[in-house]
């Protein structure tokens, strides 16, 4: 064992250590790949708050919950407490408020503060609700208006006055006590106070239940449900967490796979490094075999070499990944909050399992990538290995065979892209994407060889540097192909995601032109989280409608709901009225007026495209919705495109929903100015009319700008991942060019003897870098286009349900590709410097 270790160090490791720059670049490439994978994993867990919605804090040990769209009527609380089931019951009001001073949002709970005192520990460990003074003081505080208890991490003090914006109202509250919130800040108030503050008097957002025997919770749930109206749902506590988890799954899954691209690029580089290692040590391999080493020893030696590189890379990648996770959490967190669920990021936890996974991933990828060249090394006959004059160009590159395999895989990819999702995941889409990359990589040797052959005359005319550079690349075709493959993969990822995002962006912008027709939009200044829909006072809509210069005001009321275990939004709008409507794209091709006519009938709904995809429904199907205490059926009249969120949307006429949920307060208002009205004046009028209410007013342009800003922010993490993959690839180019320089030092020395200047040598190496960059960009562009089709029409569609119209973001792609080309050429500068500094006498003469 020790002897093997000694041999391994002397024959395999020591030579590596003598090339610190090249080895450093390879190790760093693996480190970056591991770091990115780890960062996304850690950040994913933290950003989604361990899958807990902010509203899941303070749930205690309740095991069931009772919910209803639009809120549970409060008499149900009384009904439940009279059931002979020995239940512990806790009614809850849950929403968000904006702290007026800081404009930050905070979770707001309305609780039975006396009954739930045990849930709210004081900062000294006792219940802070009981720390307010004497018993008399406690009751006085509970019953005093505008009293709140604040989580310690908010930094508020007892008796402090705090202004909170809830819905469209701002009120000042007094902090009666501070509790230990365990870094999950929230504000508590008395239940009745909360009902008033949220303008939901008579309703309960959620009733938490604790059954006497937890193991019989399911039976209890059925018993309870049987006693309640059909619209009211009884389910396990934390179900919404599970629902959110499902919703977030596709988002996290896609990000996870994107994070692996950098590692795949790193794998190319390991393959290249080990291949170079094999070529350089052919003679040593022959000697070792002649002295008694068998094939397995050779295979093991090179595989272990790769494993060591992977190990060192992973060791560097782990702390790097932990650091990167900090940034990734912020990027992912904003996406989760914007598109899915309000969630306060949890701590980033780098546990043993994450560390072990990182090592396994880093070493695993390195060993897998190294296997083919290691296998080749083990097959070399000793005599052949020791023969002088054998050069890499004699290594057979099976261009035609690989091209045919590539074509076959491309066809397989096309078939895979046609397959349906598996459990809602586009698994075959991912397979298709991987097959495209492999197919493209296999076709590269044939492509490089053909292009060089065809452009031979042009390259000759470009000068001796270009000629020598092109011959050098063809002469080391396998190495060149792997390098081009690595960089092309990174470019392809960038191009495909760029096309997907660009197409998505254009689709959204074009969609908004039709679907955002009003001149102004109003919503409450309270946090418009996707889970909650705060409302505007009903009289405000009438006030605005009466303004001169205002032609009409549309009301939209939205409710949080769930359908088949997936969160969705049920909303109602005014479909009466003769004012202008936007162009609406319905799947049936009908005009908006035709569809709205059907909605006014009251038994029909229109649903968003993501809804149809998630629930596999279509026009003409009937869906049952829990609305208030009822279970109502509606026919799907049509389907519309909606890019507002991934949550499904069910839209009906206001008159239909008021049968079940008679609350008149709207969630949003859309204001249409009269023809010819001065929009600035109308805006001023609206501002005056809304003085005293806390509402946000958006002009049409503002809203679109805001939407695009949110859109761009959600893809920030994707851009970051692409940048890392490209960086890894460019580093690989630098390392590989350095290897090429070292392997060709004899040739470079000879050129100096033949009269080549330093500048000519430098130009030659840079020309090689430029040619590599050109090939990689061209291949990456083609592969990226193919990948983008899979991303847009398969992966995105199957993950989220959106139809995206294909669009080429020419300007962005051109800029990005130019940047990568420049970076590739820059990567050639250090190898060029090394080449220029070679002493020709040392490298050419044999004495």
């Amino acid at each position, binding site marked *: 064992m020790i002897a093997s270790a000694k041999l391994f160090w002397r024959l395999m490791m020591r030579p590596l250590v003598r090339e610190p720059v090249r080895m450093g670049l390879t190790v760093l490439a693996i480190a970056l790949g591991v770091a990115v994978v780890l960062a996304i994993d850690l950040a994913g867990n933290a950003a989604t708050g361990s899958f807990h919605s902010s509203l899941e804090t303070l749930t205690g040990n309740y095991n069931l919950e009772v919910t209803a769209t639009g809120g549970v009527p409060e008499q149900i609380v009384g009904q439940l407490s009279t059931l002979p089931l020995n239940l512990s019951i806790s009614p809850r009001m849950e929403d968000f408020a904006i702290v007026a001073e800081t404009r930050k949002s905070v979770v707001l709970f309305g609780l039975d503060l006396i009954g739930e005192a045990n849930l709210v520990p004081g900062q000294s460990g006792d219940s802070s609700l009981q720390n307010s003074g004497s018993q008399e003081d406690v009751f006085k505080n509970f019953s005093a208006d505008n009293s709140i208890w604040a989580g310690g991490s908010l930094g508020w003090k007892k008796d402090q006055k705090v202004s909170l914006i809830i819905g469209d109202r701002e009120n000042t509250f007094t902090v009666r006590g501070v509790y230990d919130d365990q870094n999950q800040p929230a504000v508590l108030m008395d239940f009745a106070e909360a009902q008033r503050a949220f303008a939901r008097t008579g309703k309960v957002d959620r009733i938490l239940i604790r059954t006497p025997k937890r193991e019989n919770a399911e039976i209890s749930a059925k018993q309870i449900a049987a006693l309640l109206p059909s619209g009211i749902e009884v389910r396990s506590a934390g179900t919404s967490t599970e629902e959110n988890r499902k919703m977030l799954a596709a988002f996290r899954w896609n990000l996870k796979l994107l994070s692996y691209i950098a590692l795949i690029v790193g794998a190319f580089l390991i393959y290249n490094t080990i291949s170079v290692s094999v070529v350089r040590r052919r003679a040593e391999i022959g000697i070792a075999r002649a002295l008694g080493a068998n094939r397995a020893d050779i295979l093991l030696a090179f595989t272990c070499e790769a494993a060591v590189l992977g190990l060192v890379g992973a060791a560097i990648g782990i702390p790097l990944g932990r650091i990167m996770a900090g940034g990734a959490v912020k990027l992912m967190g904003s996406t989760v909050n914007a598109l899915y669920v309000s969630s306060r990021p949890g701590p980033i936890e780098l546990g043993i399992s994450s560390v072990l996974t990182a090592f396994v991933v880093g070493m695993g990828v390195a060993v897998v990538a190294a296997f083919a060249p290691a296998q080749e090394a083990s097959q070399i006959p000793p005599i052949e290995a020791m023969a002088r*004059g054998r*050069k890499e*160009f*004699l290594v057979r590159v099976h261009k035609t065979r690989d091209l045919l395999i590539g074509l076959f895989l491309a066809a397989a990819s096309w078939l895979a892209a046609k397959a349906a999702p598996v459990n809602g995941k586009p698994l075959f889409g991912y397979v298709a994407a991987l097959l495209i990359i492999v197919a493209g990589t296999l076709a590269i040797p044939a492509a490089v060889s053909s292009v060089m052959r065809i452009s031979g005359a042009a390259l000759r005319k470009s*000068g*001796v540097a270009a*000629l*020598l550079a092109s*011959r*050098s690349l*063809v*002469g080391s075709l396998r190495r060149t192909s792997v390098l081009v493959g690595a960089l092309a993969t990174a470019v392809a990822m960038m191009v495909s995601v760029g096309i997907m995002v660009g197409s998505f962006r254009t689709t959204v912008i074009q969609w908004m032109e039709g679907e955002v027709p009003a001149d102004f939009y109003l919503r409450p200044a309270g946090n418009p989280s996707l889970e909650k829909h705060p409302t505007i006072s009903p009289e405000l809509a009438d006030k605005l409608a009466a303004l001169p210069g205002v032609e009409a005001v549309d009301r939209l009321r939205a409710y949080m709901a769930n359908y088949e275990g997936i969160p969705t939004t049920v909303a109602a709008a005014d479909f009466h009225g003769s004012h202008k409507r936007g162009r609406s794209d319905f799947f049936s091709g009908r005009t908006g007026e035709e569809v709205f006519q059907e909605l006014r009938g009251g038994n029909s709904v229109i649903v968003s495209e993501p809804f149809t995809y998630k629930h596999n429904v279509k026009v003409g199907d009937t869906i049952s919705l829990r609305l208030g205490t009822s279970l109502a059926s509606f026919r799907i009249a049509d389907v519309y495109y909606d890019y507002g969120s991934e949550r499904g949307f069910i839209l009906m006429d206001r008159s239909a929903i008021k049968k079940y949920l008679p609350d008149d307060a709207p969630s949003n208002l859309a204001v249409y100015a009269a023809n010819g009205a001065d929009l600035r004046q109308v805006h001023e009028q609206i501002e005056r009319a809304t003085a005293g209410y806390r509402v946000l007013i958006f002009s049409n342009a503002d809203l679109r700008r805001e939407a695009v800003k949110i859109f761009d922010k959600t893809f920030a993490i994707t851009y970051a991942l692409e940048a890392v993959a490209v960086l890894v690839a460019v580093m690989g180019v630098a390392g590989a060019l350095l290897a090429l320089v070292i392997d060709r030092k*004899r*040739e470079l020395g*000879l*050129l*100096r*003897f*033949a*009269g*080549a*200047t*330093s500048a*000519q040598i430098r130009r030659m190496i840079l020309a090689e870098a430029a040619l590599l960059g050109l090939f990689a960009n061209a291949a990456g562009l083609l592969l990226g286009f193919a990948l983008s089709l899979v991303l847009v029409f398969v992966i995105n569609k199957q993950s989220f349900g959106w139809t995206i119209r294909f669009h080429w973001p020419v300007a962005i792609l051109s800029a990005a590709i130019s940047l990568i080309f420049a970076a590739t050429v820059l990567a050639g500068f250090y190898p060029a410097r090394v080449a220029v500094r070679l002493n*020709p*006498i040392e490298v*050419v*003469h*044999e*004495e």
Partner: protein
Amino acid sequence: MVWLRNVVKNYSADGQLVRALDGVSLEVAPGEFVAVVGRSGCGKSTLLNLAGAMDFPTSGEVLLDRTSTNSRDDSTLTKLRREKVGFVFQSFQLINTLSVVENVELPILLAGASNARAIALDRIASVELAGLEHRMPHQLSGGQMQRVAIARALVNKPKILLADEPTGNLDTTTGSIILGLLKRLTREQNTATLMATHSAEAAAIADTIVELRDGKITGVKRK
């Protein structure tokens, strides 16, 4: 054409000073074939490197076609080398990714001159390799590769040809042919040829044999 005047060349090897040439003076006239003989490590290659403007002397002077190489910058020396010097090596030193004609025309292309192909083809014919222009080095025998190397060395019509053990990797018969070729071309092109060899048989074809030992000239025999 090549003058070395009292040339001393020192190297530093592992912290120790090594005197590779110690006061060497030598002159090679146009059309003259001079062989430098000596055992391995006597300084033959160092002598050739200085004569070929690949290196500077520590002291003394080296003149190539009346141009001193002392204290010249790299680009000047490169230009000098390109225009006036041709090298032939023991292990041929062809570029494996270039064909025969591309190897031969390399110095012309590096000089930026035109009509490289025609000149190269002419040179290939002069070393009796016509018809093999498009072969790759690995498709040639040792003797053929050395002929290509000679053609490349002479393609720019240099005034000086430096050959470092040109027959070291060849069998006796092929080696004789190569030596004969070198001698013929030296006469035809009036080149000053300096050949380093440790083989007495190889040295025998030269006009002048210079014996080198431990960096010093110990004998000069002229025919």
